[in-house]
């Protein structure tokens, strides 16, 4: 029963992600201009501007489609950074154990107390904005998760006989850890990465919303959403609604895939023996 629901989740999620990427590609190929200001300021959705225009007369549909590039790119950068850093430190710490492991674990346990966004706000406040900067700021908050998972897996298979025998053959540490042990962590890492793409997109837009994201006039969902706030009381709803909608859809896509993968991996690894 479970594999079926998780399979449909992965499928649905993948379809959504593909649609978004297609929209993004379309916006580049067709040459939509997110920066073109016009005099049609704050006009509601109509045939010529499907999602209306913002306070500078820019077409929101263009901004929203183009913005996909930025949100996804920054999210991707941050996920890569956190996966890389967290996994490597986690693998090394789990493998070598001892005092270093205890200290590192304590460090990351403590870091768990700082929510990712707070760290991101802090770092963004210090080093400013930009694709790599923002990506880095968000990444730091997610490193503990990868550290924990990889460390846990390495720890649990460290004592297994096949590791001992590989060592006996004379495999070096690097080889041992990364070629023989890490593969066991890969399913969990992949599921976590996909889920984190979703969270990272939310964080990117969160930073943007707070004014700490990519510098204007970059079309970023969160930033546009935040700027669009000013006009809500005047009855202008489209400036904030559409960027937000894009956030929800893209996060939904990645989260569906991530959750589905997570279920599948859990189901296959903990299959209880049936005795008749």
């Amino acid at each position, binding site marked *: 029963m479970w594999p079926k*629901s998780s399979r449909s989740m992965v499928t649905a999620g993948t379809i959504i992600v593909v649609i978004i990427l297609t929209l993004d590609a379309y916006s580049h190929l067709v040459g939509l201009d997110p920066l073109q200001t016009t005099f049609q300021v704050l006009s509601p959705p109509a045939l010529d501007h499907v999602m209306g225009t913002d306070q500078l007369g820019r077409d929101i549909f263009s901004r929203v489609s183009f913005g996909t590039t930025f949100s996804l790119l920054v999210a991707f950068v941050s996920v890569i950074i956190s996966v890389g850093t967290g996994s490597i430190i986690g693998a090394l710490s789990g493998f070598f154990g001892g005092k270093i492991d205890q200290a590192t674990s304590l460090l990351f346990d*403590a*870091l768990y107390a700082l929510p990712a966004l707070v760290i991101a706000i802090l770092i963004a406040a210090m080093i400013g904005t930009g694709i790599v900067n923002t990506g880095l700021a968000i990444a730091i908050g997610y490193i503990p998760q990868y550290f924990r998972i990889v460390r846990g897996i390495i720890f649990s298979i460290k004592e297994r006989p096949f590791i001992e025998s590989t060592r006996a053959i004379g495999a070096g540490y690097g080889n041992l850890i990364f070629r023989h042990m890490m593969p066991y962590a890969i399913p969990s890492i992949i599921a976590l990465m996909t889920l984190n793409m979703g969270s990272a997109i939310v964080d990117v837009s969160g930073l943007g919303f707070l*004014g700490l994201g990519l510098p204007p006039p970059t079309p970023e969902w969160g930033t546009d959403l935040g700027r669009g706030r000013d006009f809500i*009381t005047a009855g202008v709803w489209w400036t904030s609604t559409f960027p*937000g909608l894009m956030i*929800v859809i893209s*996060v939904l896509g990645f989260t569906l895939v991530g959750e589905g993968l997570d279920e599948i991996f859990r189901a296959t690894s903990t299959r209880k023996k049936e005795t008749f």
Partner: protein
Amino acid sequence: MKLRTFILLRLLLTIPMILILVTVVFGIMRVLPGDPVAAVMGSKQGSEQQIELLRHELGLDKPLYLQYLDYVGNLLRGDFGYSMVRQRPVASELADHLPATIELTFWSMLLAIPLGIYSGVFAARKAGSKIDASIRIGALVRWCIPVFWFGLILQILVVQYGLPLPVSGQASPQIATVAHVTGLYVVDAILAGDARALVDSFLHLALPVVTLGTTMAASLTKIARTNVVDVLGEEYIKVASLKGCPDEQVFQKHALPNALIPILTYTGLQVAILLQGAILTETVFAWSGLGRLLIFSVGFRDFNLIQGCVVLFALVVSLANLIVDISYAIVDPRVRL
């Protein structure tokens, strides 16, 4: 090990953990590029002397490790430094804004915990059914909606449909200000016996609490459901019903405690996420809490204030984790070993 020993050890563990957090925050603030003096000066041009004086005042001419020790020492005495922008001790600013955040998060949790856990447990009992699927999808979609957008949409709807709900702030300016005893508007209204102020506070709490509360509930639903489903598959549940226990008894006496208690461990993590959500919610609803203070201080590059806010956040989460860990040990006998 005995419970008392565990509690003691756990309390002691908090000290290095908080120290690490404070150090990390300090490190980020000092190590990353960005000149506090330039920020305070702003666009004002100053002479060499003035800059040096300011630098000395802020203690920035001392070697880094001394600055660090000074800072930690001050923290222990409750001195969070001085806010250049607000011209007040940081601690006072924090104290002023903390109650609003506490009020927001308290009511949000009050909404989130029953809503999330009940729907998760309900869905798990009916696992595989259409209603289970609906609850799962609902929670998933709600989880994917950023908290700030959800709040914005609520505001948009209120404005579009002209609903009589306030979209920002903690209280209406028309209502006579109630004496701020605790800083918690609801409590203060009760203490003052002011019914109008009480109703007003609740009305202002409505949208923010729904925003933040449903966000938290979405994760709780998923966690609760997974836990209950896992526990229902455990051997001892089978044995319990084999013993002849009626289904309700099996569920309430054996399944629920085993399923819900691990959720306690997540609560610690959830507090961190809740505070994160509070920052965004406060910004959307112009709620004068710590979150809004943090963003304000970032905007004005008030380093001491930024540092103070983040350290306070870290302290609150550490405290929450401490309480959670100890509660967990009290409730689950396996943990103390």
